[in-house]
């Protein structure tokens, strides 16, 4: 049995960043390497040759619309399903051959809470520790630190039903840390939480990164990805269609400025004048999105000011613009 670390979050390791800003981590041995992964269900290929690698201390995001293959990739990495092709190494172990050994050093926060409703907060952690082969006495010693980290100090004896959604999510995060993992796998960690609860989770995750943990996360919140991820991959229909740091992706994939044009006249304007003077323009409902270079912003805003039936909003391009450009605007249910 692997000994537990002295504390949940050791003092910031050398070269790690401050908790409130995310910087590129130093080079290190790969914590997770996925090469040429393919997986199909019932003859339909849902992962079509995906490769990526996580360096130690890095936060790597998998972004994609529903059905892009994000959760399937995570299941393959954890050895919970076998792929048709591809190689996976996680925390130094070949997966799926040694998946169980690998999971000794991995913590997982699943998409849907699966805490034990019959147990108290502390019992949830205690029982989960047993699945790793830990003696109760070892886990008990760690529980105060884990709860402290999750903002649940003093809640040892609280019943699950008395916790809010955000508290349950933080307890799930604490449970994922019970084995002091090297790698954290988070499947949509803030889906369904209110803004306050989301910010608290992000702050906790940044804290873990600053302590040298490696994070693999799936999300479809662009702000979450932009805030947390050093690098990310945008997935569509089982393929990585773009990969890089959030800023780099925005710079490489899309015009730097966006002018959103609203109003009843927007579709008409987009079909006429808009089409002629904006190189790339997308219409979604009654909003026209004009993607333009820096120098084009002022002249276009001036033109739009002449139309009384239109309202225009100028903002810099963001990750969501990249995402929508690469994966399209149609619904994926």
């Amino acid at each position, binding site marked *: 049995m692997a000994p537990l670390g002295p504390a949940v979050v050791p003092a910031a390791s050398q070269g790690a960043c401050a908790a409130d800003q995310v910087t590129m981590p130093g080079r290190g041995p790969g914590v997770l390497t996925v090469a040429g992964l393919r997986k199909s269900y019932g003859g339909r290929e849902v992962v079509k040759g995906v490769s990526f690698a996580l360096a130690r201390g890095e936060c790597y995001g998998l972004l994609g619309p529903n059905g892009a293959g994000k959760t399937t990739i995570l299941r393959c990495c954890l050895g*919970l399903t076998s792929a048709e092709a591809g190689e996976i190494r996680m925390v130094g172990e070949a997966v799926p051959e040694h998946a169980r050994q690998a999971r000794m050093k991995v913590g997982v926060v699943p998409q849907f809470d699966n805490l034990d*409703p019959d*147990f108290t907060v502390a019992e949830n952690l205690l029982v989960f520790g047993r*699945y790793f082969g830990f003696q109760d006495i070892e886990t008990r010693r760690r529980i105060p630190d884990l709860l402290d980290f999750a903002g649940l100090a003093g809640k040892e004896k609280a019943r699950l039903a008395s916790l809010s959604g955000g508290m349950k999510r933080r307890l799930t995060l604490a449970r994922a840390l019970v084995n002091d993992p090297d790698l954290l796998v988070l499947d949509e960690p803030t889906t369904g939480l209110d803004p306050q609860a989301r910010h608290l989770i992000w702050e906790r995750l940044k804290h873990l990164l600053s302590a040298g943990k490696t994070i693999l996360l799936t999300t479809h919140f662009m702000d979450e990805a932009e805030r947390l991820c050093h690098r990310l991959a945008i997935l569509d229909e089982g393929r990585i269609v773009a990969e890089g740091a959030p800023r780099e992706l925005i710079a490489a994939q899309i015009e730097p400025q966006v002018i959103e044009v609203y109003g009843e006249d927007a579709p008409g304007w987009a079909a006429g004048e808009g089409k002629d003077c904006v190189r790339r323009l997308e219409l979604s409902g009654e909003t026209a999105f004009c993607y333009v270079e820096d120098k084009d912003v002022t002249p276009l805003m001036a033109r739009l000011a002449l139309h009384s039936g239109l309202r225009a909003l100028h903002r810099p391009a963001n990750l969501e613009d990249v995402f929508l450009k690469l994966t399209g605007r149609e619904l994926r249910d």
Partner: protein
Amino acid sequence: MDLSPPRLSWRAIAVWRRNFLVWRKMAIPSVLGNLADPMIYLFGFGYGLGGLLPRVGGVSYIAFLASGTVCASTMNAASFEALYSAFSRMHVQKTWEAILNAPVALDDVLAGEWFWATAKAALSGLAILVVVTALGFVSSPLALWAIPVIFLTGLTFSALGLIVTALAPSYDFFMYYFTLFVTPMMLACGVFFPLEQLPPALQSIAGALPLSHAVRLVRPLLLGEIPGNALTHVAALVATAGAAFWLALVLTRRRLLN
């Protein structure tokens, strides 16, 4: 499909202990619930109906029924735990999913559930055994041999139940298993009346069912006799338990690890 035999490790015990900790929180109502139902049948039929009957199989009807009740309540407790409770943990609460994210294999999870359902079934069967012994329906120390038979019966019906759980889309599905399998066995396998009362064609079918093997072992033991063909009955239960668990495992792997 992964047809490989069960690969078990000690981690199955952690799964068993998880269920034990939940049970401990409501042990008293749970034990009372397990005891009340079979006791009502035993006394209702045993004294009520027994008063109208001559000796059955050479003993009073209630003494005859006592051994059948031990087996039937073991079967029922195993079935309820392996169906409703295990399904809740697998499908509703997603407890298994959480466990599988730790270094525990599905084989261990299922084995933990199997041994847990067996333990609950054995507790139920043993509780009845203690009560009927206290009431004086058991006279011979041979009855101690009924204890391992109760465990084996629990293993058999828990494994059979896990097959149904692996296939179930919802709780409603379990109705088929109870209506088509558990209830007919209760009535046809010698719990309430000797198997020999059935028409010959039905006798051979009923006699092959797992509950009949359990009853044919437990009844003579409680009455102080050595069961006839004991090895055959034990072998039938062991084979059913082993094969059923393997099948349940293959089906559960297909359901959860695809």
